[in-house]
């Protein structure tokens, strides 16, 4: 399933194939021909279809469910309600904390948000299930809901002490500073909106459960299923060969996952359950709405004296999500005095979740808008303002950066954009009726690290297989791991097949926080190195090997052929050597964990995030960095904003495959354009319901919204961040785009919009 036909992806040039080469996606041919079968596209005999019924109130109790009509509708096999669905065990959370309650009911009696699953219909066909789900009659005892952060009942929320960051005397220094700005910045509820909906197929065979489900974390989700059904971890097999986009949303087994798996067990039939598009806006959390105030005090030549930051994000009534709003605020600029605190406010929503650069993204909207405001207050160029306050070390933990090519990003980006030609005054650049604005902002994302494991097999025919339960949702995992194995072993990349997305493969932690490439290239590099050592060892020592008589300490492998480094003596293909020594395969499992790691620690490492390695561990503070330069055109009469040019210079360290990294960067920039100008979850204040939960009303950027985008790599290998020198790629580029656009809009119009998205009514 996951072995890729390489005939279209290959390249003549060894340079393209090596780590750092611009090899085309090895999973590309499968994706462009329709051959790539995504998780819930598996074709199973006897497959049944489940459709969920969601609550139409945001708070209250389910008083009664009348399912008689649905039960007798054609093709219906079962109607599951809170009373009839099997009881599950509580599962521990993603940190590994034990469950708060011993049992778990994925269909709710107590409703805490609109759209919450309260019933499910299972039928022979999808059409029958959809029709019957419409026949389920629910009555409620409704209670008042807290609809959003601005609801009068919401209050100030709960202080999250672990988010507090303070040094110096921030309040005193701010009060004493000769130049001060203070403003509030808001971001709305936003959604990941992956094109592939969430969903799964669940099948039981005895007490063994197979789940085909798009997943950013096979091992973590397999743990949850195992705990829900009180079966051994090994009895769960999660399969996710391709993922149609995740952006943070597909890392956890969710209530709908539990419903499908329970239904399959109760009916003893495989069950397919796919959330419809509106359900994808209510069944898991997008980015929490946020509120920030940023106060900056500076001296008259622009040197920052103090930053005082306060943040609030919404969370659920019965679940906790903290969007770390001080994460960029605390590290981007040098300041002797700093204070950041954060509260969360409970509202009637599904628990918010991770969306591309959780924390850093809204944090940067606050600080990078505020620094622009301060530059105007001081009459300084926004780029100069940033250079005056450049942080030479991590101002929070007082450690040197591992690498920080941000000064280079500013210089290279400004040059490519033509920033020097900018006329500084607002409304000073125009093209007919269009006001032109040039804005900039910086971005950053921490290097999150963890351990990984991979199996590398050298087969009798000289081909190589790489196996890992990590995944490829479009970042290019298949491709960069093939490149890593090919380069390490000295074989053409066409001979390498990478198999991912099966929890029975070598284990992997979560694919999130831009950590996978660094972790997995390290694991494959190690496993492939072990396999190569074994191959060479056998070639030198096996009595049947033609190399046994060669007086050499080692051998070299290049282009799939093995020879002595001096070039004298035998020259064999790997297949010929394997045949000579009578080996079917050489297999090595490599991981990046200390040898003393216990099996329990390994399990915890891969199935929770409790063993993630802090980015400030040891002597360095590790982050990716970027600088964005944006041009907008604003219609003077209508207030419509178009982004007409983007130049971004980015430091993600060494790039394993620049072609694929550039795609991810541009994707982040485009999602940032959507965040800045289009995307906003709108809540009906009467019913606490998302009213634009579909692709026509929750507006994503389309092709016609996106201009040419230039990305420039300014990174250098960072040995402190990963085995092969890379830093995070996927989340970096979205950070700073929204403030760069807001700053450009200010430059164009003289209006400062501090409340995303920047829609026309805020400008006219």
């Amino acid at each position, binding site marked *: 399933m996951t072995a890729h036909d390489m005939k279209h992806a290959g390249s003549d040039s060894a340079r393209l194939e090596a780590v750092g080469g611009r090899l085309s996606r090895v999973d*590309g041919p499968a994706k462009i021909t329709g051959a790539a079968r995504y998780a819930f596209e598996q074709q199973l005999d006897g497959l049944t279809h489940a459709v969920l019924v969601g609550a139409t109130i945001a708070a209250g109790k389910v008083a009664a469910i009348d399912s008689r009509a649905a039960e007798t509708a054609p093709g219906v096999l079962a109607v599951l309600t809170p009373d009839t669905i099997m009881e599950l065990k509580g599962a521990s959370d993603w940190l590994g904390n034990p469950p708060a309650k011993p049992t778990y009911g994925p269909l709710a009696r107590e409703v805490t948000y609109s759209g919450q699953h309260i019933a499910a219909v299972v039928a022979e066909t999808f059409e029958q299930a959809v029709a019957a789900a419409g026949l389920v009659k629910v009555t409620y005892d409704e209670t008042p809901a807290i609809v959003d952060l601005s609801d009068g009942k919401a209050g100030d929320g709960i202080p999250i002490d672990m988010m507090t960051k303070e040094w110096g005397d921030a309040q005193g220094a701010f009060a004493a500073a000769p130049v001060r700005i203070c403003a509030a910045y808001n971001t709305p509820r936003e959604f990941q909106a992956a094109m592939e909906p969430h969903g799964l197929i669940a099948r039981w065979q005895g007490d063994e459960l197979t789940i085909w489900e798009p997943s950013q974390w096979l091992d973590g989700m397999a743990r949850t299923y195992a705990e829900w059904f009180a079966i051994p971890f090994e009895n769960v097999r999660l399969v996710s060969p391709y993922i149609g986009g995740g952006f943070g949303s597909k890392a956890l087994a969710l209530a709908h996952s539990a419903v499908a798996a329970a239904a399959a067990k109760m009916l003893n039939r495989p069950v397919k359950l796919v959330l419809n598009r509106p359900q994808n806006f209510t069944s898991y959390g997008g980015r929490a709405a946020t509120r920030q105030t940023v106060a900056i005090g500076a001296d008259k030549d622009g040197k920052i004296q103090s930053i005082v930051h306060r943040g609030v994000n919404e969370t659920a009534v019965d679940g906790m999500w903290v969007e770390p709003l001080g994460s960029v605020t605390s590290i981007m600029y040098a300041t002797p005095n700093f204070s950041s605190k954060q509260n969360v406010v409970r509202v009637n929503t599904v628990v918010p979740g991770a969306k591309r650069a959780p924390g850093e993204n809204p944090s940067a909207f606050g600080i990078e808008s505020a620094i622009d405001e301060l530059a105007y207050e001081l009459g300084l160029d926004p780029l100069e303002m940033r250079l005056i306050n450049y942080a030479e070390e991590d101002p929070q933990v007082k450690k040197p950066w591992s690498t920080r090519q941000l000064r280079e990003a500013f210089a290279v980006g400004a040059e490519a954009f033509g920033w020097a030609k900018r006329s500084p005054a607002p409304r000073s650049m125009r093209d007919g009726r269009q006001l032109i604005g040039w804005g900039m902002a910086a971005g950053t994302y921490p290097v999150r690290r963890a351990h990984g494991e991979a199996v590398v097999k050298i087969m009798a025919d000289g081909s190589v297989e790489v196996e890992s339960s990590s995944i490829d949702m479009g970042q290019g995992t298949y491709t960069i791991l093939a490149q890593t194995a090919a380069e390490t072993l000295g074989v053409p990349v066409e001979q390498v097949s990478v198999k991912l997305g099966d929890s029975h493969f070598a284990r992997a932690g979560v694919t999130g926080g831009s950590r996978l490439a660094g972790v997995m290239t390290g694991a494959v590099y190690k496993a492939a190195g072990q396999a190569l050592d074994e191959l060479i060892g056998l070639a030198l020592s096996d009595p049947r090997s033609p190399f046994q008589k060669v007086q050499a300490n080692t051998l070299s492998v290049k282009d799939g052929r093995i020879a002595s480094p001096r070039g004298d003596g035998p020259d064999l293909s790997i297949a010929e050597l394997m045949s000579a020594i009578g080996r079917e395969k050489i297999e090595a499992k490599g991981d990046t964990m200390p040898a003393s790691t216990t099996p329990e620690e390994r399990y915890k490492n891969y199935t929770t995030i409790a063993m993630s390695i802090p980015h400030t561990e040891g002597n360095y503070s590790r982050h990716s960095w970027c600088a964005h330069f944006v041009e907008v055109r604003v219609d003077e009469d209508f207030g419509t904003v178009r982004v007409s040019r983007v130049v971004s210079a980015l430091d993600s360290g060494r790039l394993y495959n620049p072609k694929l990294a550039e795609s991810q960067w541009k994707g982040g920039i485009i999602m940032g354009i959507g965040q800045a100008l289009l995307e906003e979850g709108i809540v009906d204040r009467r019913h606490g319901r998302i009213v634009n939960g*579909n692709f026509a009303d929750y507006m994503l950027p389309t*092709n016609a919204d996106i201009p040419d985008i230039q990305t420039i790599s300014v990174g250098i290998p960072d040995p402190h961040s990963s085995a092969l020198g890379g830093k995070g790629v996927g989340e970096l580029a979205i950070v700073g785009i929204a403030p760069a656009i807001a700053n450009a809009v200010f430059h164009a119009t003289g209006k400062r919009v501090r409340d995303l998205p920047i829609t026309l009514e805020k400008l006219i």
Partner: protein
Amino acid sequence: MTDIMHDQVTISPTTLSIHLTINGRDHALDIEPRVTLLDALRERLALTGTKKGCDHGQCGACTVHVDGERVLACLTLAAQVEDREITTIEGLADEDGTLHAVQAAFLEQDAFQCGYCTPGQIMSAVACIREGHAGSDEEIREYMAGNLCRCGAYPHIVAAVRQAAKELRP
């Protein structure tokens, strides 16, 4: 009320026997009239290359060709397209596996990441070029705007369509 609703459901399913011509092959199907072309392809015929993103004609992931024109399979009932020529992503490359110029350009330009919107993008791109709407980058952006891509491959999609249009020019 419940009984009326119940009756509506019980009387509606009438099985139709239809033939669909997909990628040059004939497929016989016994389906209810309410089955969409998209669900017929994905759930009955194992042709899962055509994707379901929204099921409401809002995203373009389900784009196929009917008699050479781009059509949203989620808004088309299977029974509507009996005796029409249906082409899906699985039927675009030559029998020997040689890629269509648009497919090859998508690969070369890295015009996708997760790949889920890609079959729809490619089917739209083939039609966009055939319609004569690939004359400039601006025109390509406009006529490809009905296909959403959340990974944000748009600039590379434009580059791929531009490249393929040049290669396909008579």
